[in-house]
């Protein structure tokens, strides 16, 4: 049962990720990416981390992707420019290299036996546990990340603001 669900989520995720790269229209790419991120959230549920799954949907699908779409729509740009596709030359090497590297990745991963990696028997990770860890053991990184978010917010506002001369 669990394997079946994993295969469904994984295949939809991979197909939609391919669509992100292959669709000409950025709005459709954004739709595909949204689907892919939702599937990743489902994978998190399979990995018994519901908090991560919900945060993924909340932050990525709910906010980041809307931001993407908002920018695509707000920028009044020519259709041809918007649909710029593969570069005409110079990068033919990439087409060859990327499948090779992917294949190598898979070969190495599937060839490794992860011994001692038992199935997590503990069930779902409770939110309380993560919250406690964030506010005690990882307090410093937590604060650093919040400062980073603040800086990013200020930076984004400054960047996107119209210049007045």
């Amino acid at each position, binding site marked *: 049962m669990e394997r079946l669900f994993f295969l469904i989520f994984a295949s939809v995720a991979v197909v939609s990720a391919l669509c992100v790269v292959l669709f000409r229209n950025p709005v459709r790419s954004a739709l595909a990416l949204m689907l892919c991120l939702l599937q990743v959230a489902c994978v998190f549920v399979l990995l018994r981390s519901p908090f991560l799954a919900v945060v993924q949907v909340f932050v990525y699908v709910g906010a980041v992707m809307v931001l993407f779409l908002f920018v695509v729509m707000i920028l009044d740009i020519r259709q041809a420019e918007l649909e710029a596709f593969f570069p005409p030359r110079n990068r033919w090497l990439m087409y060859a290299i990327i499948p090779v590297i992917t294949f190598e990745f898979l070969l190495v991963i599937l060839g490794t036996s992860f011994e001692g990696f038992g199935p997590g028997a503990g069930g779902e990770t409770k939110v309380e546990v993560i919250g406690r860890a964030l506010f005690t053991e990882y307090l410093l990184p937590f604060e650093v990340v919040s400062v980073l978010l603040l800086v990013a917010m200020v930076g*984004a506002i400054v960047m996107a603001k119209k210049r007045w001369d």
Partner: protein
Amino acid sequence: MISRTVRRKDMVPITWYIALGSVLFMIGVSGVLLRKNIIIMLMGVELMLNSVNINLAAFSYYLKDLRGQVFAVFTITVAAAEVAVALGILIALVRSRGVFSADKIDTLKG
């Protein structure tokens, strides 16, 4: 409910998760390398970050260790910050140049 032995056999091996992560990562890389449109390149970066999160969560679950999940939460936060700044830069860029294509942005000054 389902007996313990059945559940053990039904478990998804960790390799599957890592394989999924690596495939998504490579698709993200190809999105960054092959596309001209900056927005799609940013989406590729998002895909890469997400594939890493899958790995972190998978190891966190299979090693019964909380650190993976906590780190994934941080990754998501940093990714959100990154997108905000990147899209801010993009808006400024399109306002001043009117182009969306990475190939045409080649002047350092101006």
